[in-house]
């Protein structure tokens, strides 16, 4: 807790531990933890929203919560899980791992990295402050059966926020504005983060690590960040047009004013579909790291897996209208987008087959990360296949906006993304904390979650095809929907209990787990060649890379027939690495902590609230403060000395 007094132009106090050290940190590992813990807290919040939804749907014609509350809950559940859970958790992995995997001491722009987190956090705060500050209203002329409770005082237009339902006429009140401003703010965070991580991948790889010697996780991160770079501006544009429609009477999406509500749908999904790959590709990267290590084999067809990921990224921009097959966009458009959607199945299939081939002939160790990785492949396959059934356009006319779709994307985003994320959390836990997690508890977590997940989302395929529409707070009794809805609700509680097991394991093992060695899994990538947890500067000496899976080849010899023998000096080599990284000859220079990214984030938050209250003097004041604060932060940022002690 001792602040280090330093000299320099601005003369700041730089704490090394404690609250302010986290606020001012520019260390990619700490920023990753901030993303991770924030994302996980939102995961719990979004999960509680899901439980309320499932309680309401447990029985037909249920009155557990009101329709207004229900509409807010499903909107916030979707928004939270996408923007505030899977995206930041993916950002946490990318932030933590990219420098370690690439052999770098930090990301390319450490302060920009921090800024990305603070903007994301600001977005989350704006979004959730609506539960306290915002008001929902019935459309002019419509009547509510009850005053809307706080539980219903958050955005209620669905995560897709289609106008005109989300427009001023049909959604008066401010809940939609909070959503729009919050998402726009979080989007800026994702955008700056993508610039930073792309630069890191292209410029900070260790000597010898050509692109085709990068771990697959780094490749998938590259694709994800390109997707973010190109898709976030699109949603931002759509959001601003909608804000203008709501606040200033423009009519971009207002048919009666010459606008077009379908234009919004195109813009939204032009972002929204790449977004799906933004959510799944990091998990694919994680799984591509975990499977080889626990199969004790290299990834089968590294190049194919990499190019399949790139292909998915490219094709992801050409399939958006498959979310709109029912919107009457014309036969040619529908046929074209049906075909482009089918083509995505090809690279996706390549990945699944290559993962299975990676396990084939291996020596599988069923640790928790491996179980989650195998679970990912098995469950994502189901989501992928139901995705193909959506590309059969006329079939999608039946499926779209039903629980069949809800089942589909939960198999992709929960059975896929979240299983991948849990695989990663267990896999890198020893690196992150320097301790081992409890394996048995983790396996209980996996099996409970696996069963609960399938109980919750499996029956939804059936419910959708039996006519259960999405986003409905109730459904009639006696049309065959009762039984499987009840099963689904029970499954949701199994998932919730499995998350409790995970949390217990995490909290307990972090403090009391057995100390983790440098390389507990006998792994393949560079992050396992440095101490657990890594020193602040990551690498005492920047490694030189000779091959893909370089660390494995430092430990093992492989002959032409693929037979491997552990080098006799492998253990000595690891001990030597530990020493080298813990006690480097020259202490590496690191960027100093900076107060300006959080200050800029705070200013942006003030500016955002100013926008929401722009019709009041307080709002105008906040806008002015925000602008001045942002300008001052960036100016000081630019003038800040890079190293305090220099």
């Amino acid at each position, binding site marked *: 807790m001792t602040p280090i007094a330093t000299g320099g132009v601005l003369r700041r106090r730089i704490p090394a531990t404690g609250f302010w050290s986290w606020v001012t940190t520019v260390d990619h590992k700490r920023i990753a933890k901030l993303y991770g813990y924030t994302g996980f807290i939102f995961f719990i919040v979004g999960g509680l929203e899901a439980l309320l939804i499932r309680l309401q749907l447990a029985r037909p014609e249920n009155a557990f919560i009101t329709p207004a509350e229900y509409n807010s809950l499903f909107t916030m559940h979707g928004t939270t899980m996408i923007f505030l859970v899977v995206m930041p958790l993916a950002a946490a992995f990318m932030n933590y791992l990219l420098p370690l995997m690439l052999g770098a001491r930090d990301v390319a722009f450490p302060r920009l990295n921090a800024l990305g987190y603070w903007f994301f956090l600001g977005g989350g705060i704006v979004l959730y402050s609506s539960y306290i500050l915002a008001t929902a209203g019935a459309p002019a002329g419509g*009547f509510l059966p009850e005053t809307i409770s706080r539980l219903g005082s958050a955005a209620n237009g669905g995560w897709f926020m289609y106008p005109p339902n989300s427009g001023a006429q049909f959604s008066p009140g401010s809940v939609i504005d909070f959503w729009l401003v919050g998402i726009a703010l979080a989007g800026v965070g994702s955008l700056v983060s993508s610039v930073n991580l792309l630069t890191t991948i292209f410029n900070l790889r260790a000597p010898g690590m050509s692109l085709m010697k990068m771990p697959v996780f780094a490749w998938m991160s590259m694709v994800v960040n390109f997707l973010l770079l190109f898709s976030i501006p699109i949603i931002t544009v759509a959001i601003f047009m909608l804000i203008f429609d709501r606040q200033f009477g423009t009519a971009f999406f207002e048919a009666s004013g010459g606008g077009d509500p379908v234009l919004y749908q195109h813009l939204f999904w032009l972002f929204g579909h790449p977004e799906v790959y933004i959510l799944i590709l990091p998990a694919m990267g994680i799984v591509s790291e975990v499977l080889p290590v626990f199969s004790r084999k290299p990834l089968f067809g590294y190049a194919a897996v990499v190019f399949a990921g790139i292909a998915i990224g490219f094709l992801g921009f050409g399939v958006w209208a498959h979310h709109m097959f029912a919107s009457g966009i014309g036969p040619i458009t529908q046929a074209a987008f049906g075909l482009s959607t089918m083509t995505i199945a090809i690279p996706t299939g390549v990945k699944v087959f290559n993962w299975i081939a990676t396990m*084939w002939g291996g020596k599988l160790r069923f640790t928790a990360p491996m179980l989650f990785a195998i679970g990912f492949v098995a469950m994502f396959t189901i989501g992928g296949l139901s995705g193909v059934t959506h590309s059969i*356009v006329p079939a999608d006319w039946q499926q779209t906006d039903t629980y069949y779709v809800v089942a589909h994307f939960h198999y992709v985003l929960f059975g896929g993304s979240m299983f991948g994320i849990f695989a990663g959390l267990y896999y890198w836990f020893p690196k992150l904390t320097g301790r081992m997690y409890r394996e048995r508890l983790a396996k209980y977590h996996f099996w409970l979650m696996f069963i609960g997940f399938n109980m919750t989302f499996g029956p939804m395929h059936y419910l959708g095809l039996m006519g259960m529409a999405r986003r409905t707070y109730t459904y009639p009794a006696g049309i*065959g929907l009762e039984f499987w809805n009840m099963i689904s609700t029970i499954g949701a509680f199994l998932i919730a209990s499995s998350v409790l097991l995970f949390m217990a394991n995490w909290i307990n093992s972090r403090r009391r787990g057995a100390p983790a060695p440098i390389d507990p899994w006998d792994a393949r990538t560079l992050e396992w060649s440095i101490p657990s947890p890594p020193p602040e500067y990551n690498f005492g000496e920047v490694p030189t890379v000779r091959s893909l899976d370089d660390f494995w080849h430092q430990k093992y010899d492989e002959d032409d027939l693929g037979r491997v023998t552990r080098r006799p000096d492998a253990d000595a080599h690891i001990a030597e690495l530990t020493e080298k990284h813990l006690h480097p000859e020259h202490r590496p220079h690191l960027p100093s902590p900076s107060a300006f990214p959080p200050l800029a984030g705070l200013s942006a938050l003030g500016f955002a609230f100013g926008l929401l209250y722009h019709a009041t003097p307080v709002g105008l004041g906040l806008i002015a403060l925000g602008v001045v604060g942002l300008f001052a932060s960036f100016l000081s940022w630019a003038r800040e000395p890079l190293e305090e002690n220099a």
Partner: protein
Amino acid sequence: MNRPIRRALLAALFALLLAACGQVTPMDSFAPAGPEAHRILNLSTPVFIIAGVIFLLVEAAIVFAVWKFRDRGDDLEPTQIHGNTRLELLWTIIPALILAGVAIPTVKAVIDLTTRPGDGMEVKVTGHQWWFEFQYPNHDITTANVLVIPVGTPVDLEMTSADVVHSFWVPRLAGKRDVIPGQTTYLKLQADEIGEYWGQCAEFCGLGHANMRIRVQVVSQEDFDAWVADQRQPAVEPANGTPAAAGKDLFLNKGCTSCHVIDGVSDTAQAAAPNLTHIASRDVIAGASLNFTEDDLKAWLANPPAMKPGSYMPNLHLSSDDIDSLIAYLEALK
């Protein structure tokens, strides 16, 4: 492939369908009752089967690999296989061929099912928050909630919305089509079996979305002609002194006429609410979320927003006598 076999295959596919076998529920998309819905099912069934087979093969491969290649505690290291170009090409090309095979009938079905103008009976559909309005331009009929069509006759729906985006969906007759303000969208459907088919607005449209339902009543041509003749009759005029006449007075004086049309009684309404000229000929009210029964009508008139959240029809704080009179009038409007 006949229906029992197809059903059995699909049941095997999901293992979940078992619960529904032998019982057709009103919105079962596996129980098509018209050519459009049949075409969709015929197109998607082979895809479901192919997907099911691939699912089984992939999952079997995973389970097999997990069993066969588990660590048995020996010292042998597995052979380091970095890939196999021939295999990888194989599992790129085979899915591509399967998809190409699926793509052709898909494109053909898309074009067939969206071709217009159709040659069917025209019905104009207008989506409102939260009910569907149906107009028969050739018969000069306006009705709501219940779409009455003759069996075996192609119907062309010409759809638009009065407010937000809705989606018209009656799964046993056709797929969905969105109903969009400022635009006209089209949907063809036909029912080959007499009966009642349920539908639901399938695009989230606000508070009452869940309660925005549809009934399609499919009747014989003779019954349809009779229905048309009935609907073209002027509204029934209740005899003086009856409860129904009292109800009519209430209808005229309580503000109902500002939104509800009854031909010859309140023609000047903005038609923001269902046309009630022949409401007693329909068996549902309130966006087809309630039945045209005395109990439901009572509850509805006592507090509409409580029965259908968000309802634009306010709570008029009617006395129970007033409600009884109004119900008598509505029941007279056959």
